[in-house]
């Protein structure tokens, strides 16, 4: 296998939180705590998990939109965390992001044309204004809008259309890698499929490599090559999508999959119900962070932090009881 386009090693992003009084001890939220994966060129990796599992922070940290505390992010051979501000800005052309909320992610004071052309201007793509305008028109058509939309403003569009504009903005700088942060979860179900199909097409046509952050497992299954299940800032299980859905091994993965709706009532197997809520990332449980809610946890789970172990080709699980 060739060298991965994106390689993340032991990434940690911790936030200090202020105590109740200025004198109380400073606490630390471990939003991302030892994340690691490789992503091959042209593949889509999905990060899934409940809210609070750190998937969004993980995505932002990979792009250095949030500064990670420690770890390594290697993008096409360069260590992103070692870049200075100017180098990082230049590298941003190659990695883009699509946001969750299409109503918040477009500057309301900029016309659609300017929004999409901004990145081109910054990175010197296109020769002159006219050429850039043509490129913007082509991008608009590529994402299913039209040239006339260029002079309009974001508030004139529906959620789905805005998300297409956001996608066009990301594509405008011809990136190799796109981080899609729950790009459809704010949209109507009827619109979701259209946007997902668009992403699928773009990926096929442009050979995009993507990290897709999501919590809807049916959406993830449709789109991804690899799936990583996150819990409290760590990966619990990572595998090829088909493999993960066919053979979920980690008890948390089982629980997540059994909670997903199925098309045929009664077709669902045994439901694995989780008790309680996600523990606070300020004070994660010792040993395996999932043990407080795990149906098969034993006393030894509190003692050791489980490593991700290979249990099959490309299938790795962090559980000492399974695999």
């Amino acid at each position, binding site marked *: 296998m060739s060298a991965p386009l994106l390689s993340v090693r032991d990434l940690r992003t911790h936030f200090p939180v202020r105590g109740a009084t200025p004198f109380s001890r400073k606490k630390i939220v471990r939003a991302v705590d030892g994340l690691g994966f490789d992503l091959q060129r042209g593949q889509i990796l999905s990060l899934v998990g409940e809210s609070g599992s750190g998937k969004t922070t993980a995505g932002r940290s990979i792009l250095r939109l949030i500064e990670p505390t420690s770890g390594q992010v290697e993008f096409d051979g360069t260590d992103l965390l070692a870049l200075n501000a100017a180098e990082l800005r230049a590298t941003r052309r190659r990695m883009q*992001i699509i946001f*969750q*909320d299409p109503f*918040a992610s477009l*500057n*309301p004071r900029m016309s659609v044309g300017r929004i999409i052309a901004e990145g081109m201007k910054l990175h010197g793509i296109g020769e002159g204004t006219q050429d850039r305008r043509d490129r913007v028109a082509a991008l608009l058509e590529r994402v299913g809008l039209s040239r006339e939309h260029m002079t309009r403003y974001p508030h004139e569009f529906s959620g789905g259309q805005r998300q297409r504009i956001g996608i066009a*903005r990301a594509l405008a700088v011809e990136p190799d890698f796109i981080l899609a942060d729950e790009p459809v979860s704010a949209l109507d179900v009827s619109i979701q499929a259209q946007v997902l199909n668009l992403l699928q097409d773009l990926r096929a046509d442009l050979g995009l490599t993507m990290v897709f952050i999501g919590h809807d497992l049916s959406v993830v299954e449709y789109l991804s090559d690899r799936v990583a299940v996150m819990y409290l800032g760590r990966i619990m299980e990572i595998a090829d999508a088909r493999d993960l859905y066919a053979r979920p091994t980690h008890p948390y993965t089982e629980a997540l999959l059994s909670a997903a709706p199925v098309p045929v009532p009664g077709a669902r197997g045994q439901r694995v119900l989780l008790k309680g809520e996600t523990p606070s990332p300020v004070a994660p449980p010792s040993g395996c962070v999932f043990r407080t809610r795990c149906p098969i946890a034993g006393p030894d789970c509190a003692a050791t932090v489980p490593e991700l172990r290979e249990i099959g080709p490309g299938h790795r699980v962090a559980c000492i009881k399974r695999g």
Partner: protein
Amino acid sequence: MARVLRRMLRRPLGALGLLIVTALVVVAIFAPQIAPHDPTRPDFMAILQPPGDVYLLGTDELGRDILSRLIYGARASLQAGLIAVLLAAGIGVPIGLVSGYFRGPLDEYVVMRLTDAMMAFPVIVLALAMTAVMGPSLYTAMIAIGIVYSPIFIRLARAQTLSVRETEYVEAARALGNRHLGIMVKHVLPNIASPLVIQMSVSMATAILVESALSFLGLGVQPPTPSWGSMLRIGTNYMSEAPLISFWPGLAIFVAVLGINLFGDALRDVLDPRNR
């Protein structure tokens, strides 16, 4: 620009504001052509005259034509309002924007506490102290008002920036590879502009009042040059015999303040793409 004006004229209140502001500016610029008399030439044969044929709005205690003095007075008042506010916004908005964008201890402990200290003083008292130090004239009054008003703009720009900097479109701008300056100018500033425009129009109106007050106290425009504030002050001495002497400059201030506020409101609405 033409489009902005056209859209403004479509709003009745905006049109009225625009009309008042334009009229004031025209009057101020063409004061020598419009004024029927010399505003500083006394006519001792006609002191404290009521409105009449020769002196349309009457005369003051030295027999000077009130209408002409009002017309010339528009110059001092409008200049004071405009320049003071431009100065205040020119100082305040960049400081507030940068301070709110970067946060940090400099923002929290230096910029904010200094503005707190400045805002703790009543505007007039501070402006009074400054003009007293710099010597009384229209220009020191304008500078003093501008500086005294700048904390309002620092505060407002900072508060707005704090909310805008957390939006996803600012994050998107960073992800595209913008510099901080580019983000501030292209993405933050346009989105904090609405309240700033309103604040400018409100401040311009109150700056005219403060200039009037300073002139009233003898710290602004120096006699015999007319300003609405100094006319108002003199008029109070003759309140019982000739109340109209202070009524006219008071009315002028009222109309100017109203017009500028209407103009500011309409400008804010028109500049927002969502209102197209």
